[in-house]
């Protein structure tokens, strides 16, 4: 038996696949009408145009990019899109997956990129960056990438709504406002707040975010300022969707806040950043 030729790409792919791609709450939203419709549209659109979609894989900063090429088959599943690469014998050699819950913070917007082909002639491509994977189509297929982006955005919205549970929070905020005596923060919460502020001061925003999330997990209304700070920190890390949601939650909890104007301005800023 001949040993299989292992490409560098293959190794890279399996590494990417191993790196924490996991199924999440997609099941809870699978019954959502918009979600279902978006999945259906993608399932119709992508497999048919599989030969027009090229794949690129890059690291987080996209400083190193590997061209994977055109996949042999595209499958749109309930929680992901699967790109299957096959050899001449029609045997699957590698698979790349884009999980929807991994692109919740992504700015889903196709970008026109000008480059050149092997002969040096200029070419225009349309790139859609989805996490570490980018979908690439030629300029003639720009409509395709725009449609894919639209459907993915729709999926992203539904998943984010489910993630932040805004409707539920509105009730929580109302109940909080009706309370005569507001809940006070616990010692554990105070510990996490102090930690978060310390991380912020040294610009370690990710750790600060984690600490504030722990504060909210203990009691979601004891320290409303946690929402405000979390929003600022997320905005700082370019996670604008989450930043907007946390700021909105803060405004629901403290509608008469002294920084209400600033909070609203921030939301507008982040919305612009998200859509441009």
């Amino acid at each position, binding site marked *: 038996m001949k040993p299989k030729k292992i490409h560098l790409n293959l190794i890279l792919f399996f590494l990417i696949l191993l790196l924490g791609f996991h199924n999440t709450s997609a099941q809870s939203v699978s019954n959502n009408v918009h979600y279902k419709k978006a999945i259906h549209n993608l399932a119709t659109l992508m497999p048919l145009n599989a030969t027009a979609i090229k794949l690129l894989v890059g690291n987080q900063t996209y400083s190193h990019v590997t061209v994977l090429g055109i996949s042999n088959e595209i499958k749109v599943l309930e929680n992901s899109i699967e790109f299957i690469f096959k050899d001449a014998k029609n045997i699957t050699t590698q698979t790349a997956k884009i999980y929807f819950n991994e692109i919740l913070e992504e700015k889903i917007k196709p970008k026109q990129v000008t480059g050149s082909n092997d002969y040096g002639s200029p070419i225009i491509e349309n790139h859609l960056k989805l996490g570490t994977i980018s979908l690439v189509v030629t300029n003639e297929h720009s409509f395709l990438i725009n449609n894919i982006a639209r459907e993915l955005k729709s999926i992203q919205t539904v998943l984010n709504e489910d993630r932040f549970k805004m409707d539920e929070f509105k009730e929580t905020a109302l109940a909080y406002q009706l309370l005569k005596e507001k809940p006070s923060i616990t010692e554990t919460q105070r510990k996490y707040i*102090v930690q978060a502020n310390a991380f912020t001061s040294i610009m370690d925003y990710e750790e600060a975010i984690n600490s504030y999330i722990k504060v909210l997990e203990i009691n979601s209304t004891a320290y409303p300022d946690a929402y*405000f700070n979390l929003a600022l920190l997320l905005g*700082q890390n370019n996670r604008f969707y989450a930043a907007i949601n946390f700021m909105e939650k803060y405004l629901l909890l403290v509608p008469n806040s002294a920084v209400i104007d600033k909070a609203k301005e921030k939301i507008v800023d982040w919305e612009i950043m998200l859509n441009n």
Partner: protein
Amino acid sequence: MNHFFNHYKIYILFLALLCCYDVSSQVGITNSGMTQEQERNQASKGFDNSSKSTSALKQLENMTGQTVTTYSSQRYNQSNVSKPSMSFDQQMNIMVTGMIAQSLLSSLFNSSSSVPRVQEVKTQTATLVGNSYLENLKIQQALITSKHFKMMNLYKTLSDEKQMKFKSIIDLSMQMNPYQTFEEAERQKLLKKGKSITWDFNNWAQHSNDQPTIEKSTFQRTKADEYLDEAINKIETLPGGVGRIPAVAGRFMVNIKDETMSYLNDAKDAAISGNTATMSEVGNADLGKRVNNAIYKTGVQTASAYYNQGKDMATGYFDDKMKEVNFGIVRDAGGVLLEKYKIYAPISDSWKVSIRKH
């Protein structure tokens, strides 16, 4: 090798000077040997750029047909300083040659070979690229920092949190009265827990300003004390009133003794308690006020004695009820007078020494 370079430099210098001469002749600084007529013809065509031409000034003169009078320093000083006669062309010649030679010399001595020059260029490029990268990095860092500080202007810290409740060192829920010391509060706490506390702090130090009552001695009066009281009363009632002053003196001495004993008793209790705060308070007590206590007590006791004696003497004049009222007025008036003339100081203010916070 150095020897060779020295020769090489001299050779180049020589060549340079030679070239300069040649160059200066080519740009038309020297006279070309053209006739005046030929030059005039040439002048009609404008400035001459050819290799054989006159100076620019001469060409101008030729074109206009006029002579330009130049007030050169040479002419001004002609009468005073004798200088070698030199034409304008010659002067220009010397100047240009000098400049070229100088530049050549400086270039010769600045870089001795071409190899380091190439290296220098390469290093310069690398330095420039490095500098540019560092500059970009600095800009990026400055942007991040500026963004951070902008965020920190809005960022809410714990100190902003009005709902924060800090645990105070003293539990205010203990309902301390304004005169209760921390030790007393602690004592009360222990009593609530059923612990036995011998030191009653309020017995000697805690008095309200509203009740200027005399502090009771905490020691037990003996039979001897009672006999002494009876003796004083008898002396006071001696016929002719001769015993009244000795009786007052006697009462005063007894009261002084009581006050002293009371103080010693307090001191003993404070020492037994082991409480430094109470010991300190006893130590800081103003003993002068104890004497005032004794005077006050003596005054009140004397007034009471006169009242009792007078009441007995008044038998038959008033009925019992009237007698009680009238002599009561006299007794109370005695106390009022004592207070008015500040014969005593109210014990609550005097004995209560400054209670320090611990």
